[in-house]
């Protein structure tokens, strides 16, 4: 139970300006994910919250109390590190109980809490083992156990799953999510993986070059990306960006790909696009928002586009079909039963309700 506020945060690594003025609220009991490409400052910020890095300017406050000069151990936060950071000379029990012993809890209480945490994480049979006798996933559980026994008010996760293989990562991701549902504590989680961010986060903070690019719920970032960067970072396969010209009349805009291809846009409230008519823009369409005509009838805002398929990538559950449009390679995600062949002419249904328009000069969404 803690509310984290970051105000005007600047951080430096030698000459590098790693965090360049971040203002952020992390609400109580929420699972907040810091996501972004490497070097965006997300881990640096997390470590600053834990008190492991010096702050250049600004404040970090937990429950209204400014933490800048408080020692890590007095912040009452718990942190899980990417490489687990288990003590190799201690068994699992002692590793989990380390923080309690450092805080001088009595033996019985330590035993009770360690067993409780071990039970929650399925580690009861491993309490006597040494870390080197555990698998990667078990080690990560021990690291999580060490964090949860403390009943800290704020949990910090620094890319905890990136050392695990793909299958285990999916399992542990689900476990962490379940853990949050059970203990309902404020958690801040750092990852470079947008899928982890989407699946785990109540809120996502997308960082880029030491600044917040956009924050919001996973669906806000997915459906209403503020910038081209957010649009391409969130979602997999990534969004298609197609150069278009905005044409048509005020109140009834359309996008033109080339001389004889154009699609109508659902008219947005208040003539949002009117001022841009006649401009070169970028149309953003997610692969999953294109369908094969055979599938269903049309709805308002769903437009038909005839394309020539030049690449087909089946994955089993889905098929990715690529085609050229306005000089760009565009990918559509189709149902598995719709496997087209290279050279097929497809009538593609494009859901323009979910498409976005991006100003190429500012790279912001219109």
């Amino acid at each position, binding site marked *: 139970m803690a509310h984290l506020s970051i105000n005007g945060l600047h951080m430096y690594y030698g000459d590098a300006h790693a965090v360049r003025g971040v203002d952020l609220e992390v609400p109580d009991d929420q699972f907040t994910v810091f996501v972004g490409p490497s070097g965006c400052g997300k881990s640096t910020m997390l*470590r600053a919250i*834990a*008190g*492991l890095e010096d702050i250049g300017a600004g404040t970090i406050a937990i429950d209204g109390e400014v933490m800048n000069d408080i*020692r*890590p*151990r007095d*912040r009452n*936060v*718990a*942190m899980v*590190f*990417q*490489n*687990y*950071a*288990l*003590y*190799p*000379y201690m068994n699992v029990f002692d590793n989990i109980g*380390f*923080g309690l012993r*450092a*805080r001088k809890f009595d033996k019985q209480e330590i035993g009770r809490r360690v067993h409780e945490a071990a039970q929650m994480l399925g580690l009861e049979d491993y309490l006597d083992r*040494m*870390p*080197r*006798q*555990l698998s*990667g996933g078990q*080690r990560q559980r021990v690291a999580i156990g*060490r964090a949860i026994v*403390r009943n800290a008010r704020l949990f910090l996760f620094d890319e905890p799953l990136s*050392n695990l293989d793909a299958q285990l990562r999916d399992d542990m991701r689900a476990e962490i999510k379940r853990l949050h549902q059970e203990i309902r504590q404020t958690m801040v989680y750092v990852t470079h993986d947008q899928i982890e961010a989407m699946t785990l986060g109540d809120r996502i903070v997308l960082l880029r070059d030491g600044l917040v690019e956009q924050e919001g719920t996973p669906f806000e970032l997915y459906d209403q990306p503020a910038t081209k960067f957010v649009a391409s970072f969130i979602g997999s396969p990534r969004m298609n960006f197609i150069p278009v010209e905005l044409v048509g009349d005020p109140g009834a805009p359309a996008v033109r790909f080339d001389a004889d291809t154009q699609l109508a846009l659902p008219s947005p409230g208040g003539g949002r696009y009117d001022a841009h008519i006649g401009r070169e823009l970028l149309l953003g369409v997610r692969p999953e928002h294109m369908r094969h005509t055979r599938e269903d009838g049309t709805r308002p805002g769903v437009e038909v586009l005839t394309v020539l398929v030049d690449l087909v990538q089946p994955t089993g559950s889905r098929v990715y079909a690529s085609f050229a449009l306005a000089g760009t390679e565009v990918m559509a995600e189709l149902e598995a039963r719709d496997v087209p062949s290279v050279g097929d002419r497809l009538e593609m249904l494009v859901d323009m309700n979910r498409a976005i328009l991006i100003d190429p000069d500012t790279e912001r969404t219109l």
Partner: protein
Amino acid sequence: MSGTTPSRAAGPAGFAGRKPWWQRDRTRRMAGRLIAVAFLLLFFLFPIYWLFVISIKTPDEIYSSPPVWIPDGFHLDAYIALFEDGDVQAIWNSLLVASVSTVLALLFGTMCAYSLARYRTGGIHLGLWIISQRMIPPIAIVFPVFLLYVMVGWVDTYRGLIVLYTTFNVPYVIWMMRGYILDIPLELEQSALVDGCNHWQVFVKVVFPMVRSGLFATAVFTFIFAWNDFVFALIVTRDAVTTFPVQITHYFGAQSTFWSKISAMSVLGTLPVMIAVGLLQRFLVRGMTMGAIKG
């Protein structure tokens, strides 16, 4: 191992096609290795054997020519003489001086090394400068030190030798321990800080156990340095705190040389080091960071 492969590959004939064991490549290679090992062992162990047998020979056997390779009996006269004359006090002196200076050097050296490794105290080159202090030949500073000790009255005292050996060993400890400390994953210490330790507790509860095997290895070397030192001990002691290497020189007389005493004293002086190395061997070779980090 590869020696068995061709015979197995010989086909359905199976074991019928195998050569008798004494003709197999594997046996021959093994025999060659054993002979080489035996020769090397003889080469390195003979001096130790010779040292030991002289200490239990009678004077006649010592001086006989050709030499007596295996003495007739077990004559402990030399050892008894060392104990009766109180000469073994020198072993005790060596033990005390070497142990105390080793503990002190490890204590101060490890703390310095931690500071150098984690807080970059003195910049990145200070470590190199410190180890360079160790490279000064002892003989170059022993007389200035002697004059200093005369002034402060530390000649022929335990503290005189202890301070000298500690001073000489600290740079070595700093250099070695700095390396071991740099090998500790930083996250282990940071995790302890977040979990509720202060910096001192991190040092005791995380750094110390992590570098324990390195600490023992370093201890063996610092102990041996103090134990084997001759130059310092010769110059700054008289008779009260004579260490055993210096004591041995007392048996080289103008008229005669007491070979049996020399050799008995040498055996007594070698034993503690051999025992220490034997006991600590486990730590000398064991890697402690396994399992901390996936990799």
